[in-house]
């Protein structure tokens, strides 16, 4: 068998190499494997034979044809990930082989480009968040949240985490999984049923016991509303020796106060909106930032890139820093087990933020705010309660329909529109009539008007 990806698997090379090694057949190199373990036939995988590029292209094409992509209009579905525009330049850069075929830059001198790009990612996020230190990525926001909780426990030596009852349910479930082994408890704080905001009284009460490692809030929340009492929450947490952790939406930060401003100790976020695509939920990008505080920095999970100089002091350079926190050095004492992360996605985010820039970030935040408010307003005109909460919101919002939403959703699909996320399972307390809509920079007024018109027609029909 000769194969394009296995250069020396041809007769000539094989023979020569085996001779040099001093064995007769490749399987002689497996002589230490218990013979009863050796398989006597090839595995039942693939399509029973090797395939050429063209064959697989046609096979994959036959699968892809069965997927339905919504572009006209773009998806209105929320739930932590929304449809955002991906600039062509981002894809172009991360398609460069020197980046995507590289390993973790263990040899900094030969990988300065990669390191600088990651340092820039850290720096751009730091400025966007007004936090000082950012790692070069967690897997996604859910695991960033989990790692933040674990870190809070390490820093404070306490074993309880308080989170809002409106927290993103998948994030909550991931955090529970990650905390399960260490026996850390997560408690939910109820919310103001009008605004969605966290119940400050309950929060304060739960903090009294002084066994809380961290208070976590989402801003905007997974249901889109803004948590306005951030300063108060921050103060409360700190007063009781807990860390204050904020989950934010990076694209909101051209408009909304960044976590650094309300004294968050740790800020986490999902970076998918920064030029990554939806990817059916992965890869994503877990953003993780802390303020300048040695207690915090020393306990950070994940990779950090830092600025340095050559040993002769003459040139600038970039290297991985504070590696003594990491598993390959500290093993069971490491601050996390993470090693492979989402570096390339971090670079995508860096390219995206560089393209957006100081002007662009303000503009995009603002336009998302405007469009999502426009959509809510238009929906409310046709008898939909949108937004459900009486509060400011950003990008996502809950809409409550006069009839069960799932029916409406299917009717929208038939019109090639991907509507909001049905909330009956995601957020059961809210009932079967609710959906989580997301409106971004990608939705023109025409798209929104189209949605509203079609919805109006459907509601009329279904009612």
């Amino acid at each position, binding site marked *: 068998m000769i*194969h394009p*990806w296995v250069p020396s698997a041809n007769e000539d090379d094989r023979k020569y190499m085996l001779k040099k*090694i001093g064995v007769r057949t490749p399987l002689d190199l497996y002589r230490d494997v218990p013979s009863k*373990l050796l398989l006597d036939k090839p*595995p039942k995988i693939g*399509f029973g034979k090797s*395939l050429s590029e063209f064959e*697989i292209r046609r096979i*994959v094409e036959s*699968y*892809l044809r069965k*997927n339905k*992509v*919504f572009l006209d209009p773009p998806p209105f579905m929320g739930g932590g*990930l929304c449809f955002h525009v991906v600039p062509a*330049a981002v894809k172009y850069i991360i398609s460069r*082989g*020197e980046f995507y*075929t590289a390993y973790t*830059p263990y*040899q900094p001198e030969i990988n*300065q480009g*990669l390191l600088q790009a990651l340092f820039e990612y850290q720096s751009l996020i*730091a400025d966007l968040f007004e936090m000082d230190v950012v790692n070069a990525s967690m*897997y996604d926001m859910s695991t960033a949240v989990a790692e933040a909780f*674990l870190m809070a426990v390490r820093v404070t030596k306490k074993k309880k985490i308080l989170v809002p009852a409106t927290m*993103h349910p*998948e994030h909550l479930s991931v955090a529970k999984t990650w905390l399960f*082994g*260490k026996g850390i408890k997560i408690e939910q704080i109820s919310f103001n049923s009008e605004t969605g905001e966290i119940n400050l009284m309950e929060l304060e009460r739960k903090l009294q016991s002084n066994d809380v490692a961290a208070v976590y809030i989402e801003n905007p929340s997974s249901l889109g509303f803004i948590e*306005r009492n951030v*300063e108060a929450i921050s103060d409360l947490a700190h007063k009781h020796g807990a860390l204050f952790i904020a989950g934010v939406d990076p694209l909101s930060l051209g408009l909304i106060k960044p976590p650094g*401003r309300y004294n968050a100790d740790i800020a986490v976020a999902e970076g998918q909106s920064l030029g990554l695509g939806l*990817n059916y*939920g992965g890869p994503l990008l877990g953003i993780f930032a802390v303020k300048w505080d040695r207690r915090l920095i020393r306990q950070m999970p994940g990779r950090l890139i830092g*600025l*340095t100089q050559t*040993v002769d002091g003459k*040139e600038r*350079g*970039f*290297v991985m820093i*504070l590696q003594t926190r990491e*598993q*390959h050095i*500290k093993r*069971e004492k*490491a601050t*996390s*087990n993470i090693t492979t992360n*989402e570096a390339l996605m971090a670079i995508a985010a860096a390219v995206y933020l*560089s*393209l*957006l*820039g*100081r002007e662009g970030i303000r*503009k995009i935040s603002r336009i998302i705010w*405007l469009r999502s*408010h426009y959509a809510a307003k238009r929906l409310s005109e046709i008898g939909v309660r949108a937004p459900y909460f009486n509060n400011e919101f950003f990008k996502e919002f809950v809409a409550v329909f006069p009839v069960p939403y799932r029916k409406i959703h299917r009717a929208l699909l038939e019109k090639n529109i991907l509507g909001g*996320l049905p909330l009956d399972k995601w957020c059961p307390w809210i009932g079967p009539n609710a959906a989580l809509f997301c409106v971004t920079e990608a939705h023109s007024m025409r798209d929104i008007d189209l949605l509203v018109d079609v919805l109006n027609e459907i509601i009329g029909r279904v009612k």
Partner: protein
Amino acid sequence: MVEGWRQARWREPLIYELNSVKAKRIGFIIPYADEEEKLVKIVGKPEEKLGTMYRDTPPELPSLSEVEVVRHYVRLTQMSYGVDVGPVPLGSCTMKFNPKICEELASDPRLVNLHPYQDEDTVQGLLEMLYLLERWLAELTGMDRCSLQPPAGAAGELAGALMIKKYHLDRGENRDEMLVPDSAHGTNPASAAMAGFKVVRIPTSEKGTIDLEALRSAVSERTAGLMLTNPNTLGVFEEDILEVAKIVHDVGGLLYYDGANLNAIMGIVRPGDMGFDIVHLNIHKTFAAPHGGGGPGAGVVCAKGELVDYLPRPLIEFDGRKYYWDYTCKKCIGRIRAYYGNIIPLVKAFIYIAMLGPEGLREAALQSVINTNYFIALLKDVQDYALPFDPQRPRKHEVVYTAEPLKKATGVTAEDVAKALLDHGLHAPTIYFPPIVNEALMIEFTESEPRENIEFYAKTLKEIAKMSHESPQRIKSCPHNTSVGRLDMRYANHPKTVTPTYRVYRRRVKGEKLVL
């Protein structure tokens, strides 16, 4: 590969430093921006509505055109080095060629534009691919089912460790010890610790395999399980694996297989047949999904028998008509991350496996082992690099040398050797790992390295050894041909100079004393 290599050097400013004049440039046009005014008229100004939550000063981002941004990052790529550029024989990393067809097909809009919550009947094509992939991975590992959810190997390990934890708890046993050989990858003990286990270190015997006596004396009713890599990180196959499995199972422990690197054995032996209960795989190693300079990867976790119930949910299912996600979770550990996994790398693995096919996968495995042993044969008579742990034994997908003899004779360390390799346009091996080998040089060529490059690598290592004897200072001053010279790790990590972001840099420049 020819002498005279020199990496591009751009002395590229930070992206912040490019727009020297702070002019208002943009690199991205907001869609339908002409609607802004109309929208404001209808819904009002966010600045006013947001009250105290309004951000009154814009983030300190650079302002650049698309031209400048593209050039900047293109230049940075020229100062990076991946498999597309040359051999990256980092041991334990399985740096194989990333086929371009995988990249092309997996970037199709009909994949990257799918919302994870979109209705299952609108993603049947993707789900079918994932379903097949899961079946194939189960077949290759000898496991019953796999969860595609873990985003990387370490997350797969954490999932596995938590599964072990929960399995025992569900049986009313509070087993709190996880056995981990001293040759194990750092993520093994770290994951075990994250799952709340006490880590018990098992030494390696002179044969390069787990010390059976030590293992026997370590196991007890506190033993939750053993995490093992086979072939292990020394590239040595644990020939006593059946005995190892028996020892652990006999005390009621479970066997966890770190299958980050299945490269030497795919299609040849299966962890399931060796007695393992749980396996994780690194899609970004064995199955050619790219490493992306550190990620993303995908870390599928598989299980056998009862343990299947504990796999992270949802699992991919097929009811004869329709593919769907099965969220049923009676005993499962829950989710290990949001949504379903790193789908794009998984699709690349689907393509990779389908294209190589049953024979091809096996041939790739064999070739990776031939490459390793060919390299060993080429280095046979070199005294400066020694092969610890039974040099007669064939290695599998990788091999670990020690540069201790060289260091003793010349003062040149494994790190110096690494830097000297860079100067020849070659990426260095993994160094100082596994920790049980001093001055370790851990080398893994994978099947995609052509013979010539293995020969050049061996030749270069020999030359470096020779030069180390003649003029150790010359080697210690390497690298010269990379885009920068050797970097100061002390400065980088020193509490007074450590600079993790440009923001910290600016704060320092403004006079703040930021000490770690």
